[in-house]
């Protein structure tokens, strides 16, 4: 059963959908409508093939073998790093550190940079809409070091009060760690302004870009961010691979999170010295296949073109906001229009609990997320225990948004 495709922007949705094998799957005898992209994206055949090719033709460990397979694996792994670096416009490939994902990347900064640079009484600025992965590592650091977490004022749509933010800086402000796009509200934060204000106070900024880099063209140098964390699996890549981008001087001064193989220069019985970037921060055999898969994902995104993807999602988000906004009893969280907003749409359907909404939509083959989205403080601010969330990507279509709206209407009448 073919799913009709249509798109407001210039993307050839039918061609794109054909690249993603899972999109042809049936769920409960219905065509899959996958709207859970903020949790994880689907994978194009190019990424799946890259993983296959690695395991089937040149599987080997990197940076140590003197044999042909190891040389090829090393070259492909480092080529993936270079591709990711160019994708985000990092100044050097070695400013891209491969991690398991966003969570590990942020923990790496909290430990490797935070333990060295944050002391008792120091302050870290966050927002209330951070994903737990950009909140809990800072709570842990604050506890270890006796530091304070302070929250930048924002409204329930996730709009940061920049003037209030600028007034929060003091002699003890050590770091700003904020999301670039809320995984609940879809709000895109003014990252360049946030960085600019922080830099006037000589305070570095970490951007949680897990939701932004898959969907927007991001130039880390133009933004001026000091650390940027993101995950491969939300941008068409495999799970278990992610990136910490860091400014060279900051990464150089960081302590490793993992001691072990490949991060050392000389190991003696009682002490060791570290090697340089990026290996210093990538102890142990890395996720070689994952990095190569992420390289293929970045190639795919580049071929489609990030500006095209952003335009497509922008149009689709606008379409979805209009459609859902017109449904009686449906409350959409986050900015009401698509300005400075990504395609992450959290909503509530009358009195129907989000888990019931999720189950009913699933019965129609529609995959959404229901829950607190790893953002419990934000849920409290919104005054709900959970929301349902539909999140869009390049392969989604207006037809699928129509399916969502119909499914919501059915759920509402089911519980009426």
């Amino acid at each position, binding site marked *: 059963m073919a799913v009709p495709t249509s798109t407001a922007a210039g993307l050839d949705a039918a061609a794109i959908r054909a690249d993603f094998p899972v999109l042809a799957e049936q769920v409960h005898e219905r065509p899959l409508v996958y709207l859970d992209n903020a949790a994880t994206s689907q994978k194009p055949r190019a990424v799946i093939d890259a993983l296959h090719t690695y395991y089937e033709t040149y599987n080997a460990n990197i940076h140590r073998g003197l044999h042909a397979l190891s040389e090829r694996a090393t070259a492909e792994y480092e080529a993936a790093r270079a591709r990711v670096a160019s994708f985000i416009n990092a100044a050097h490939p070695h400013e891209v550190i491969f991690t398991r994902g966003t969570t590990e990347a942020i923990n790496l900064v909290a430990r490797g940079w935070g333990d060295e640079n944050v002391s008792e009484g120091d302050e870290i600025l966050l927002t209330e809409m951070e994903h737990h992965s950009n909140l809990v590592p800072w709570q842990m650091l604050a506890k270890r070091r006796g530091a304070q977490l302070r929250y930048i004022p924002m409204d329930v749509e996730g709009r940061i009060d920049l003037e209030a933010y600028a007034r929060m800086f003091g002699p003890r402000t050590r770091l700003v760690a904020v999301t670039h796009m809320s995984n609940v509200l879809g709000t895109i934060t003014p990252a360049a302004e946030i960085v600019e204000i922080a830099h006037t106070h000589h305070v570095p900024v970490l951007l949680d870009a897990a939701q932004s880099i898959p969907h927007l063209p991001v130039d880390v140098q133009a933004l001026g961010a000091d650390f940027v964390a993101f995950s491969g699996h939300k941008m068409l890549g495999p799970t278990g691979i992610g990136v910490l981008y860091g400014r060279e001087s900051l990464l150089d001064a960081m302590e490793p999170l993992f001691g072990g193989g490949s991060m050392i220069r000389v190991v003696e019985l009682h002490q060791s010295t570290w090697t340089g970037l990026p290996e210093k921060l990538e102890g142990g055999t890395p996720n070689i296949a994952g990095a190569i898969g992420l390289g293929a994902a970045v190639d795919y995104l580049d071929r489609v073109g990030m500006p095209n993807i952003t335009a497509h999602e922008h149009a689709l988000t606008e379409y979805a906001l209009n459609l859902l906004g017109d449904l009686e009893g449906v409350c959409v969280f986050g900015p009401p229009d698509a300005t400075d907003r990504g395609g992450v749409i959290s909503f509530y359907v009358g009195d129907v609990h989000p*888990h*019931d909404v999720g*189950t009913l939509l699933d*019965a129609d083959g529609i995959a959404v997320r229901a*829950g*607190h989205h790893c953002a419990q403080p934000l849920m409290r601010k919104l005054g709900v*225990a*959970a929301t349902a969330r539909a999140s869009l990507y390049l392969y989604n279509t207006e037809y699928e948004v129509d399916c969502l709206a119909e499914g919501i209407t059915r759920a509402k009448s089911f519980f009426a």
Partner: protein
Amino acid sequence: MTLEDLYREVIMDHYRRPRNRGALADANVVMEGVNPLCGDEIKLWLSIDDAGLITGAAFDGHGCSISQSSASIMTAAVVGKPLADAHAVIAGFRSMMLEGETPDEALLGDGVALEGVRKFPVRIKCAVLSWNTLQLGLDEHATAGGQRVELHHSES
């Protein structure tokens, strides 16, 4: 797997017209159960007399239809029963939900309607929240020697 397995008519009836909803003024066992992963919350009140008879059972809370209807069904199943029977009802319900045992309708009453939830593994925790909370409340009551019991339970 069909939606009707999950949202049986009996369940929807308890969801739309909950039995025993609202605080019980003379309760001597007051329990709160939460499922932090999904935010379901159940408050339970029991009045247990000196002879060990459950003379009153009530609940309040918020959460999905399964968690709320399950609490309604549970209060209806244990009210008016001696403690030993209530323990048997809880054990019967939990073995149905968690171990797939064939339920005894005479024992569980409307509780058998929740058997279909087993086909939706992620929703089982919604159905058992109130029952787990009640079990802990009864255990606490047994060790409290007639004292009023207040208990907070959080599913892991």
